[in-house]
């Protein structure tokens, strides 16, 4: 019965490359579909056959734990044949270009390719060269659409809405694809977005995205309903973006004191992996009343199932 209603509206895009390309109808369709999978994932029999006979290839050029396993599980639960390729050991190492890899895989007639790549726009390039749908699992510092969708689902699950909420996104915004996708999506769904980062980690002209920017974390957290922390990409420390981890924690680490500036019932989110004691106090991260970090991971599978199902059709 559920499939019948979903066929009425069609997704506007062939590929899921970024939140930027989606309409609000697309987003609602994905979120509605994902809601139906939450219960399934909690039940004893987690298997559906909607993607029976479909082939899903996961192309991960960058190391990933949660996104890769989440996509793999999502595909398997829907009955697809899932092949995960760790591209570190692939022909890319032998000098093959992304386009040639795409052509090779395309010849095997997959129905969906999930790609994670260190270069911004890699998924766009891939999508131009293959016949199947391409799902972006993170490209460079451009977009990570399924992360934003699962964050939205997590917020809706807890707060019952997004419109009118004030959301703070805090940390290394410059290098963060998660931040960008979340800004687009939260804006689209009617939230007010505060961006908090030291100037060295704040991208140029980000305020043109329609967000408020803060370098003072306490001011940025004021009256927020959601506090979204980002991973401090430690590998960046070498180029003197920051003086030290301890100074960063002092000014931008989420501590109970800083959190007190947000609303009393504010939720803490983090896309993972976390640097405990650098961007977030370890007790806060585990506080079951405040932190929904584990729930994000759980709902991630449901969101990815929804995306696979919708874009496979």
């Amino acid at each position, binding site marked *: 019965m559920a499939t019948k209603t979903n066929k009425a509206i069609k997704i506007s895009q062939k590929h899921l490359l970024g939140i930027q390309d989606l309409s609000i109808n697309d987003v609602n369709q994905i979120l509605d579909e994902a809601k139906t999978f939450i219960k399934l994932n909690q039940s004893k029999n987690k298997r559906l056959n909607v993607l029976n006979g479909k082939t899903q290839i996961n192309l991960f050029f960058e190391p990933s734990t949660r996104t890769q396993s989440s996509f793999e599980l999502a595909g398997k639960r829907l009955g697809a044949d899932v092949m995960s390729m760790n591209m570190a050991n692939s022909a890319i190492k032998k000098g093959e270009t992304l386009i040639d890899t795409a052509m090779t895989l395309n010849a095997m007639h997959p129905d969906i390719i999930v790609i994670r790549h260190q270069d*911004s*726009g890699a998924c*766009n390039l891939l999508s131009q060269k293959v016949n199947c749908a391409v799902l972006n699992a993170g490209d460079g510092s451009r977009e990570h659409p399924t992360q934003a969708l699962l964050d939205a689902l997590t917020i809706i699950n807890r707060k019952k809405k997004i419109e009118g909420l004030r959301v703070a996104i805090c940390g290394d915004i410059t290098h963060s694809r998660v931040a*960008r996708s979340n800004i687009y999506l939260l804006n689209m769904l009617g939230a007010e977005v505060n961006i908090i980062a030291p100037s060295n980690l704040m991208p*140029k*002209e980000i305020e043109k995205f329609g967000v408020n920017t803060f370098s003072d974390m306490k001011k940025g957290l004021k009256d927020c309903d959601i506090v979204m922390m980002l991973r401090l990409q430690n590998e960046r420390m070498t180029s003197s973006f920051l003086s030290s981890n301890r100074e960063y924690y002092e000014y931008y680490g989420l501590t109970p004191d800083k959190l007190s500036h947000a609303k009393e019932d504010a939720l803490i989110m983090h896309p993972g992996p976390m640097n405990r004691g650098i961007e977030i106090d370890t007790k806060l991260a585990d506080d079951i009343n405040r932190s929904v970090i584990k729930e994000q991971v759980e709902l991630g599978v449901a969101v990815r199932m929804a995306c696979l199902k919708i874009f496979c059709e």
Partner: protein
Amino acid sequence: MKKQYFINGNIVDPHNSISENGGLIIGENGSIEAVGKKVNTNNIPSREKPMDLKGKYIFPGIVDMRVFAGEPGYEYKENFRTLSNAALAGGVTSVVTMPNTDPIIDNVSIVDFLKRRGRDKSKINVYPSAALTKNIEGISMTEFGLLQSRGIIGFTDGVKTIQNTRLMSRIMNSAKDLGTLIMQHAEDFDLSKNGMINSGIIATKLGLSGIPAVAERLIIERDLTLLENIKCRYHISQISAAKSVEIIEERKNNVKFTTGVSINNLSLNEIDIGDFKTFLKLSPPLRTEEDRVALVEGLKNETIDVIVSDHKPEDEEQKRLTFAQASTGASGIETLLSLSLELYHNGSVKLETIIKALTSNPAKILKIDKGNLSVGNEADFCIVDIDKPWVVKKDKLVSKSKNTSIEDKKLQGKVTNTFVKGEELFKL
């Protein structure tokens, strides 16, 4: 060679302040015998058959100050033969080649090879430049004097910038002593590190690292400050930002130097990059529309002296990659004039100013007797149907590499004939 007569053309020769309807007579030795309104049917012997240009334009052969030839090392991208064919199709008869080859043009023996190849394989005038520093490493300077005596026209590290201020001042001192022309690509590499496009909203949106305009400005300001005390022939290869135009305008009152701009930066802006078009990954990068307009204004008021093609042939393999991996640069020598004419057709810049920036100005900077239609000079010129509409198609390009930045662009004005030393080497 038979004597040739052209009548009823629109002649634009900024060097001789000619802009009038008239004709051209080419002598048997390939040099210009007469030019201008005095050349008409009344003073041409009746037995001769003059070519009636029917209002088409005659421009001096274009002098392109910034061209990357593939030789030596990258012959698969472009060689002297394909480069000259592409140049001729665009009305370009003289080029300054960049030293960024493999090996780098940084010593006398390579120059001899280059001059020979250029002479044997090329139909146009090739003026090689050499590197400012050995292996363009920015550490120790090359032998300006010796290289110059072998025919090097100017010195530049091409795509690279001298970062070390002390070295730059020493280079300028040597250049002052030897009368050497220095051409600097202005970019502070610490600020532009990993940068791919203009720093700003588009870079943030695409998730690409930016090259801030201030990286260009700092080098310009540094060099012009040094130039106050060390007077040498100094040319800024290309500028891309509004702020640079402003500074140059201001500094021109104190120090003597010249400035170039790429036709890409005059015609396109960062929004054209769209969905990661690697053919528009350029150096300097395309910037905002405000910057572009400021550059056009700078050309118009002659703050900017020269337009270059920044012709950088790259084979498809180097462009069919992610934006981060793709090589930088666009092929552009054969569209340089047509694309420049867009600024005339849309009323932004006077035709004479554009032609000056393409012919006599670069020739003056290079100290070569080219880019003019002076009587007695070698007849390098092109005939242009200035209103002829056409569409750029990469498959139709003559250059060996098809990485044009303006695929499918509708242009107005096309070269129909190009002559070098009085010989017609291109005919549409």
